């Protein structure tokens, strides 16, 4: 058998076995995701994906901590806030009133 003849055989075999899939078969292949759930391999086989997901979270937490520390340091210790001042005045007024009442009783 010549090389050309042999190649003709191979070509004929190739074209005969290269048939397009039927519509029904194609649909059954496309329906695979409806029939089967996926195996989760995020932590075991794809650690880089896990890392990718963690980066935004880690950055968020670090920024929140920095903000907390900044706010904490920016308010000076010992300053009296408006609310503290009001409470202090209220206590003072009560003290004065009670002293006045004590004075009335003794008279």
């Amino acid at each position, binding site marked *: 058998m010549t090389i050309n003849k042999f190649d003709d055989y191979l070509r004929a*075999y190739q074209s005969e076995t290269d048939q397009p899939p039927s519509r029904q078969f194609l649909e059954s292949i496309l329906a695979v995701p409806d029939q089967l759930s996926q195996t989760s391999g995020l932590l075991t*086989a*794809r650690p880089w994906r896990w890392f990718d997901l963690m980066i935004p979270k880690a950055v968020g937490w670090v920024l929140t901590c920095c903000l907390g520390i900044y706010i904490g340091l920016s308010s000076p210790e010992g300053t009296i806030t408006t609310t503290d001042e009001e409470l202090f005045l209220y206590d003072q007024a009560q003290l004065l009133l009670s002293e006045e009442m004590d004075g009335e009783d003794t008279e």
Partner: protein
Amino acid sequence: MNLKRAEYISDEQLMIRTGDGDRTAYKMLVDRHLRVFLGFAARVVGDRAEAEDIMQEAFFRVWKHAARWDQGRKTKFTTWFYRVVMNLSVDVKRKSKPAIELNEAFEVISEEAKPDEVLSDKQMAEKIARVMEQLPERQKVAMTLCYFQGLGNKQAADILQITTSAIESLLVRGRKRMAQLLKEQKQEFLKENM
């Protein structure tokens, strides 16, 4: 990324998206590869119906295990998928008992026997299918990958996990064996018709 720009998305990227549950990516993989791999499975097992079962199982594996696709290992999707289909086909082939009727497998209508010069394509295909059935497993897979799937020796060697020189050797031996078997078939034909 827009999936409409299909030509810019590699199979490996589609596999990663499939792993994330993206059905469009899965559909694109099916559209790209079903026909080629169905042909491959049909050539290895010699039966279209069995080849369809193999492809069903192979795409089950694509969908189920896509989340485990390791981008870092640098394996081409097609190389991996050829290995999956090849292993499934070889398993099916080993389990199946009698050789299937080739006329049935390739829908060859029984025609009157003719000499080589006037054989139809279907009859030539049937002869090659018969010869392929008799080849050793590895020679058959190597011949199928290189001659019928159009792969280079390098990729075929990667799929079979052997060296390029080993695949070349398999091809030379396979081709020789096929030519010899075809010659024997011809002699048998001449004896029967004399």
